């Protein structure tokens, strides 16, 4: 239904940039079932230091086979750290889980190869399971966060050496 849809306007994106600018983060990766928005500070090339936006839209509810849900989920923030590693941090406060359920193998272990789309963990916030994506391609260096403990927003969960 039209009125359930949440739009991010140009003003909203500008506000996200303003918030990021006042934070230590260089990148925001926001996923809902409808879209993925990446806001990032350019790290190389002529646009270095400038903020950019990139969107990915899911096939809509109006087309066959597409999900109609509009529940917002997930968000992961990644940041370059001084040692050349990318830190995948919790976007929301919540409980970090390394595996999809108790007893199951962990999503990733140090040494594993990941792509930007690889799920490296889950943060449970307000009864919502938010997958945490690597956001970058590379190799898992370490997993500083312990399993099944409460983490604050911004806590480093996984460190990745970028490919």
């Amino acid at each position: 239904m039209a009125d359930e849809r949440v739009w991010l306007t140009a003003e909203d994106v500008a506000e996200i940039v303003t918030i990021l600018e006042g934070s230590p983060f260089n990148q925001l990766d926001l996923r809902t079932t409808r879209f993925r928005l990446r806001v990032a500070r350019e790290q190389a090339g002529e646009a270095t230091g400038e903020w950019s936006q990139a969107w990915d839209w899911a096939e809509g509810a109006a087309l066959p086979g597409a999900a109609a849900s509009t529940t917002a989920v997930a968000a992961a923030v990644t940041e370059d750290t001084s040692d050349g590693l990318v830190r995948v941090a919790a976007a929301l406060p919540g409980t970090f889980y390394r595996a999809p359920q108790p007893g199951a193998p962990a999503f990733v272990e140090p040494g594993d190869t990941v792509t930007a789309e690889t799920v490296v963990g889950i943060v449970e916030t307000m009864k919502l399971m938010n997958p945490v994506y690597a956001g970058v391609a590379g190799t898992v260096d370490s997993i500083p966060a312990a399993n099944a403990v409460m983490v604050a927003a911004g806590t480093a969960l996984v460190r990745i050496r970028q490919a």
Partner: protein
Amino acid sequence: MIRRLFIANRGEIAVRVLRTAQRLGITTIAGVSAADRHSLVAKLADEVALIGPAPSSESYLNVAAVTAAATAARADAVHPGYGFLSENASFAQALAAAGITFVGPSLESLAAMGDKLRARSVAMEAGLPVVPGGEAATREQARERAAITGYPLLIKAVAGGGGRGMKRVDDPAQLETQIDLAMSEALAAFGDSRIYVERFIARGRHVEVQVLGDGQRALHLGSRDCSIQRRFQKLVEEAPAPGIPADRHEALLSAAVRLAEHLGYRGAGTVEFLVDAETFDFFFLEMNVRLQVEHPVTEAITGIDLVEQQLLVAEGLPLGWRQDQIVLRGHAMEVRLNAEDWQQGFRPSPGQVKSARWPAGPGVRVDSHLTGPGEVPPYYDSLAGKLIVYGADRAAALARLATALPTIELEGLATTRDLHRRIAADPRFVAGGVDTRFFDGFLEQPARG
């Protein structure tokens, strides 16, 4: 009350219209061609209706197909966007017959402004100055007109718009060839071969005024300058038009309102003027009775959503403002990012967009259907998106434009990004108030800045 809006367009403007409609709680139906089934508007719309095959003559330009699709979708209104059927009187008529609201002006306004010769005489009735010229039905008549107006002159299509079918003639020896060309182009593009001849004003600026009317009252939302054009196609637009003395600017704005009120105009429209870059004398050119590609710069300096106003007026509501309540604040610029290889003669560059990156931040707005992976099909125009920047003044807007442009990256397409970077760095553009000759010889100059 509009509850179900059919969007009879594609690309960035379809997404633009959809956004406002969804914000207002209106159910949106995207009317798409087979080539656009997986386009962004199809992903975002509440419902999708297939109009027809990819070629626009069989889909977006097909009055019967669009009307049938809108009827089948139980739409109570159709937004035509710009181009395609947006100024087509028979389309408005077909919708009226089907009991569907056309989000656009009355049939009378469409007829009066759609015929450029009639538009000239209506403008003269309303007391607006026009460029010397007139109809030239035959070569003989064209020669007679040319003898009166003098050279250089412009040949234009009576049914034309958007710069198509326009020819500049500098030399009497070229006249007949250019007449033949213009007539055949006009016939192909508009199904009407009639042309007219107008004096070409060399140091002219293209300045236009955004108007809004409810059928009774009209008001203006300030000016836009669109002088940076290549072959009569706009590349960069800004609001307000810079460097025009206040009294002339005010006269221009009130002339536009006068025409809109004379027409009893209902909807959003644009009155285009040619402004002499030295004397600031102005002449009525034409009125576009639809939303313009460059409307976001006006939205930026007024804070008014023009699509929302179009929908409200189409519902029969009176304008919600008086002129003195419209505040023009700051300065905005828009660049049209086209999928063209500008270094290879502006060759179209259709294809898959693997990934897209656009600037973000305060004072930055991106209107595009290619904000992520997507496609530029080979069937339609090359507009891939628009970057709109806003600043407290012209210098601030320009600075924002210069820093935002390098961020744009549409992987897989050639675009006009770097052309815009050159324009943004050009001292004449930085100074402001360039005339339409700006682009002549521009590409031959060494890059500056």
